[in-house]
């Protein structure tokens, strides 16, 4: 009897921190911004329930254009990251020798350990008007005057791919690790071309890793703040920047909360749609990775 009580007590003691953490720092705060987004200031210190904040969002093209732009750019970055990262993941998992593969994998992780801010700053040093690349172009005679490579969309995409590519490579490497090379051999023996084997055998096998990578990359990109602002400058039009502006600059928390909820809803929707299209589930991808 005493033993059972002890087990029950230990269960409660272990549950308490989890429930406090999830309840007080995740669930209630999100309900909080949900609540704030649904109230309207009608007079000083007088509020009432309304959808006014959401209506305002729909009425102001600059707001929903920014959200749309953020979404399109994030999808673009996700696709680019997959295209850039997949060959690297395949190389690490299947082509590299035993020793070099551990080294390559570690090298891949290095930028992950370095702050976002330092990485963005590094790109600034490289790409600005007085930067290294501009200097090189002038020195080699390819350009006459200083070249400003910052503050355009291409740079933002390059910087964002840089920030998130590791989150694509790691899950793909871990799924491809489990693939037996004899599957590839069988594909060739049955007369498949290199392209057919890749398309019909390797990619389907890597699918859980690809989907996990895409989800993480998309979420990180849509929620990123530093890279688009520092590399894109004043006109980067990133949605998280709007949230910051509403909260800190304009002190309009109702509208800022609304934007937060919209960003969450929107990114969740894209992730859900991606899972549906690829026939995967959240549990088999993210939780495992």
């Amino acid at each position, binding site marked *: 009897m005493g033993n059972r009580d*002890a087990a029950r007590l230990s*269960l409660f003691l*272990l*549950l308490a*921190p*989890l429930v406090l*953490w999830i309840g*007080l*720092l*995740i*669930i209630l*705060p999100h309900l*909080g*911004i949900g609540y704030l987004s649904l109230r309207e200031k009608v007079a000083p210190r007088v509020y009432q329930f309304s959808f006014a904040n959401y209506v305002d969002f729909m009425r102001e093209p600059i707001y929903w254009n920014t959200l749309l732009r953020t979404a399109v750019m994030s999808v673009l970055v996700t696709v680019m990251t997959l295209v850039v990262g997949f*060959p*690297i993941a395949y*190389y690490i998992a299947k*082509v590299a020798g035993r020793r070099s593969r551990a080294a*390559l994998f570690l090298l891949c992780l*290095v930028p992950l*350990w*370095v*702050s976002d*801010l*330092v*990485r963005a*700053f*590094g*790109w*600034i*040093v*490289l790409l600005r008007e*007085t930067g*290294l690349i501009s*200097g090189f172009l002038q020195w080699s005679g390819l350009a006459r005057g200083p070249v400003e490579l910052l503050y355009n969309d291409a740079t933002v995409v390059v910087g964002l791919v*840089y920030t998130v590519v590791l989150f694509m490579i790691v899950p793909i490497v871990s799924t491809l690790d489990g693939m037996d*090379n004899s599957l*590839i051999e069988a594909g*060739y023996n049955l007369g498949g071309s290199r392209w057919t084997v890749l398309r019909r055998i390797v990619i389907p096998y890597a699918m859980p890793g690809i989907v996990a990578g895409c*989800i993480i990359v998309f*979420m990180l990109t849509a*929620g*990123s*703040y*530093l890279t688009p602002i*520092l590399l894109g400058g004043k006109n980067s039009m990133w949605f998280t920047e709007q*949230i*910051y502006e509403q*909260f800190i600059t304009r002190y309009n*928390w109702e509208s*800022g*909360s609304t934007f*937060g909820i919209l*960003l*969450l809803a929107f990114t969740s929707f894209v*992730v859900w749609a991606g899972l549906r299209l690829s026939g995967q589930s*959240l*549990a088999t991808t*993210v*939780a495992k990775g």
Partner: protein
Amino acid sequence: MNVAAPQTPLLKATYRAYVALFFLYLAAPLVAACVFAFNDSTFAALPWRGFTLDWFFGDTDPKIGLFNDRRMLAGLRVSAIVGLIVALLSVAVGTTNAFLFERHHFPFKRLLYILSVIPLVIPGVILGISILVFASMLANGAEAAFGTDLDFLRPGLFLVVLGQFSFLTTITTLVIGARLRKFDIALEEAALNLGASRVRVLRTITLPFLAPAMIAAGLVAFLVSFENFNTTLMLIGSDAPLTITMYDRIAKMGSTPVLNAVSFVLILGSGTLALISILIQRDKPAESGR
């Protein structure tokens, strides 16, 4: 022969070149950020004017080095304190969560597990504003109901700690849980059979087994906390951690080589901590594959 590798020499060379190019891309901004910390010029740009350590130790006006820059040093101190507290807290809760999920069965376990993974995919800015909003609601409520001013619920380091803790606990839970899953429960049973108390078993057998994962998780938590920007930005009060101070400088003054010096120190520091956490975790080569 490796059938998975490309077979023709041309294809092989192209593939190698692509991989090399990719790693150049990874290294380029980090190298660029570091190199100019040692250039004897007031701009972080070419031409190269000779090697100097002034951007670290200098104390005369145009060249105030990092270690004589009061605001940077204050930021460094704040970041270190916050990182330490967050690391300790998140490892403690991560450990209890690991035991909960690996050793116990209870209703809604799956739901709670998913909920505890979710903070990792919520954008940091949103975690920041939601905690800011909730804490302000509590503070306003307390003020209206009891007339007390709960100052710690206003933007400041307490909220920064909570904000970072809210998603770092997911990482520590996953890392420590993965290690606990590998634990052979027979070891505990043997000790219990030999007459050890539960507390003693935990202290002498289970926790020492978990220690590498706990230390590694703590290092990761410290690092990520130290480098965090998005969540922190929404929650800071008057004391700014290093990343915020550095961001203000980049945004306001363009850049001086002091920022390169900070970058160099940060890269060096995080590289060292990362290496330690990797070495600690792989006590047996078989386990390094994950």
